[in-house]
């Protein structure tokens, strides 16, 4: 009985964690290549969920078509945002860039709210909900698909970064902009592509999350803020860190929520990731997998 409860929490954590991992990966891609801290990452997730819902419910598209439309839309949105908002700020102080992404998050959130209202909208059932039994634990099938989907996407991303031309160019840009420039890589183009990829990856996370929740609303954005504890834990510049950090935070918040919430009357889940963030800052600010920087003068 107790073990079942624990397993249930673990699985929930894994599911949420894999979505955190996706969004955090998007965050890290942007940070690595442009050293901008994107506080609007959660809103990309929300945009993905809402656009996909609108395509399916409003325009009556089948899921696969809606999915492709969403990816195209968010990818272009990411590139557009980089061109219009981020590029003029190249070379500005870091805090301007952080603050502009805060403005961006407000803009995306309020636009969605104006378009779709604040009520929770039902999300079409795209993943089968019938439970399967893993030993004694019943698991919603959709959860398994979500984890599998997230894992598949992360594998694809890894392959992309290691074998494709664009992926290699992105990595070159991330490791040294000057060298990348001298090798004929358009650094600005790479910045735009990073934003595009980050938006797409988060949007997929949003679709998966909406699918397993069965609905979309404004609270998805708060989910997005949790990407910050994730990337601090994993290390701001490490994709492996984003994945591990996502899973750890997902599992940690579910387990602590499951066991501690009855003691304090709820709310633990929301605060545990941030306590982790503060602890990591005190103990090991570069995170589990992040590089320590040597600043040369």
């Amino acid at each position, binding site marked *: 009985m107790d073990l079942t409860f624990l397993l249930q929490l673990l699985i929930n954590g894994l599911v949420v964690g894999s979505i955190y991992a996706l969004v955090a990966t998007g965050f890290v891609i942007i940070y690595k290549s442009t050293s901008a*801290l994107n506080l609007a990452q959660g809103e990309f997730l929300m945009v993905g969920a809402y656009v996909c819902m609108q395509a399916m419910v409003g325009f009556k598209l089948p899921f696969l078509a809606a999915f492709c439309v969403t990816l195209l839309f968010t990818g272009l949105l990411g590139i557009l945002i980089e061109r219009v*908002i981020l590029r*003029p*700020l190249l070379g*500005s*102080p*870091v*805090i*301007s860039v*952080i*603050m*502009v992404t*805060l*403005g*961006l*998050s*407000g*803009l995306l*959130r*309020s*636009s969605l*709210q*104006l378009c779709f209202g604040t009520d929770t909208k039902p999300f079409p059932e795209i993943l089968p909900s019938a439970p399967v039994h893993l030993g004694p634990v019943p698991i919603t099938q959709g959860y398994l698909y979500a984890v599998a989907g997230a894992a598949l996407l992360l594998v694809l991303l890894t392959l992309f970064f290691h074998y494709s031309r664009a992926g290699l160019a992105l990595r070159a840009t991330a490791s040294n902009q000057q060298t990348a420039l001298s090798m004929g890589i358009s650094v600005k183009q790479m910045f735009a592509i990073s934003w595009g990829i980050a938006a797409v990856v988060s949007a997929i996370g949003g679709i998966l999350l909406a699918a397993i929740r069965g609905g979309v609303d404004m609270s998805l954005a708060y989910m997005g*803020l949790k990407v*910050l*504890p994730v990337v*601090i834990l994993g290390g701001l510049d490490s994709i492996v860190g984003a994945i591990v950090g996502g899973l750890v935070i997902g599992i940690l918040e579910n387990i602590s929520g499951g066991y501690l919430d009855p003691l*304090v*009357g709820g*709310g633990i889940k*929301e*605060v545990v990731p*941030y*306590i982790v*963030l*503060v602890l990591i*800052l*005190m103990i090991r*600010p570069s995170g589990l997998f992040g590089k320590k920087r040597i600043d040369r*003068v």
Partner: protein
Amino acid sequence: MSRSTDNSTSSAGPTTTVFKNDLALLGSAPARISLLLVIALTACLPLSNSSYILDVANRCGIAIVAAIGLNILTGYTGLISLGNAAFMAIGAFAAGFLATKGGLNTLYCIPLAGLITALLGMVIGIPSLRLKGLYLAMATLAAHFIVEFLVVKWESVTGGVAGLSIPAPVLAGLQLDSDRSLFYLIYGVVLLATIFAANLFRTRTGRAFIAIRDHETAAGVMGINVFQYKLAAFGLSSFYVGVAGALTACQAKIISPETFPFSLAIDSLAMIIIGGLGSVTGSILGALFLTLLPEALRLATTALSGSYPALVGNIAPLKEMIFSILIIVFLVYSPHGIVSWWRSLTARFRRDSAVQKPKRR
């Protein structure tokens, strides 16, 4: 290249008057005149019998104190904080606790709340101030959610979700419970806060803050203890914000966790970005602009509600959208905020008068 070594005698007047002018807070005639106008106008406000106007004015005053506080940290020292709402909450609940459970006169609770917030702020700031600036953004964001959680859960101090109701401050036997009496209290604080900040940034400590923002390494080489000054900036900023929180408690009379949502922190940032980062005047302009904007929006939507009834329900997202667009537009196109328009205007005025004199010679 023109050499300027030999120019030292030709510039305006003896050097002592020049640098005394540098030190003056209000260097130009338009600045002095407009300040007088502003003070006169503000002094007229309590003549109004409309409690709506006084309420809005009071909220403006509180926003000014909070914005100056955040600007000391973010605009002047270059450290971004997302925890402004949390620090306001700490100030408000500290004042509330001392006034209700401690039985202190709420008036004395206001500076005490500032001190408590400053101390807690520094405790939160210590781990991240040794790191790069963006870690402070992270830590203060975390602080927001942790403080929010504690405010809800620590019922014996904060009253939990039900909140606290704050007794009116008492000054010389007078209950400051009306909007008008609070106006005097709040604007008294605004005046002190403004003068203190303006003084600070024409002297040693303020210059050290700005130096850290502009070039941390060079600041250290000039003998500035960077960590100590960052901590001081964080403490002072938190003091201001805590006082603003305590004033909010006096003004709202009942405070609950919902009084200080995360969006409040964003609003404060928007104020200093739009008003002008690293400027006391900018903080004031930004706070006024962004406090009055939603009021204007509300008036406009009520006026238009006949033809567009959908507008009324959408005030909140509309407000957020306008704030966000303003944040982006200002950061991209006018990173020095509204105050820079004012400065270029007065600079032109000054240049004109300076140019005229040599012509007559």
